[in-house]
């Protein structure tokens, strides 16, 4: 449906994420606005947040992360990123460019791990909602996993979402 010059870029990479480069890749002459979500490795998770790992869920205690180790089922992850981009285009037809990038490997606190960027002519056409939808869906259906390594050992971060038929 969308003109073929609307760029969709997705990638799973072990390299450092470059927001400037990514934004340039999805900026067309007609583009005036971009919303970008970036996720970073948290080194310190405050106590008010319920622990995600049963083994660490001592209430009232902050926890520290030394690093995260990400892995992906790369060809399926790429296919699912493409699907997320298609879902965004269906829901927000005025979106021009979409970029979805996940960095994998060993990633330390304060390092960007994931980027979702959506561009459009104007900011009032859904770019913020589209980027938010993108990161929510990535965390639901794109086959990537992370293991957290900290002072108390290693814990796989377990997701919660069970895909439905057709996803």
């Amino acid at each position, binding site marked *: 449906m969308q003109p073929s010059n609307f760029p969709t870029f997705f990638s799973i990479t072990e390299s450092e994420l470059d927001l400037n480069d990514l934004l340039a890749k999805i900026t067309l002459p007609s583009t005036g606005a971009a919303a970008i979500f970036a996720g970073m490795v948290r080194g310190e998770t405050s106590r008010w947040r319920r622990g995600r790992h049963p083994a660490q869920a001592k209430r009232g205690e902050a926890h520290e992360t030394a690093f995260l180790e990400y892995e992906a089922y790369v*060809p399926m992850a790429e296919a699912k990123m493409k699907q997320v981009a298609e879902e965004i285009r269906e829901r927000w037809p005025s979106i021009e460019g979409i970029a979805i990038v996940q960095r994998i490997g060993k990633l330390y606190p304060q390092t960007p791990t994931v980027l979702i960027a959506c561009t459009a002519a104007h900011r009032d056409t859904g770019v913020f909602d589209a980027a938010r939808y993108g990161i929510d869906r990535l965390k639901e*259906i*794109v*086959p*990537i996993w992370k293991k957290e390594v900290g002072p108390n050992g290693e814990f*796989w971060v377990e*997701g919660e979402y069970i*895909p439905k038929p057709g996803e």
Partner: protein
Amino acid sequence: MNHIKVLLFATLRDRAGTKSLEMEIPDRATVQGLKDQIGRDYPNLKEAMGTVLISINREYAFDEAIVPQNAEVAMFPPVSGG
């Protein structure tokens, strides 16, 4: 019989101690049948078969689905990227 490769990720790989399994399954075996067979053949994976996610040829697959010939099957826990 159908020869398939089952890729394992994250906790599934850790439990199995290997990145993939090569298996012979009956023709027209379902995903549920495959999980039952893995539970019998790989005791370390038995417990995980209740909550594991399965993909066939890079699409999510569900219990009643038939595993096609030469399928690329993968097993993994709910995803946690981002």
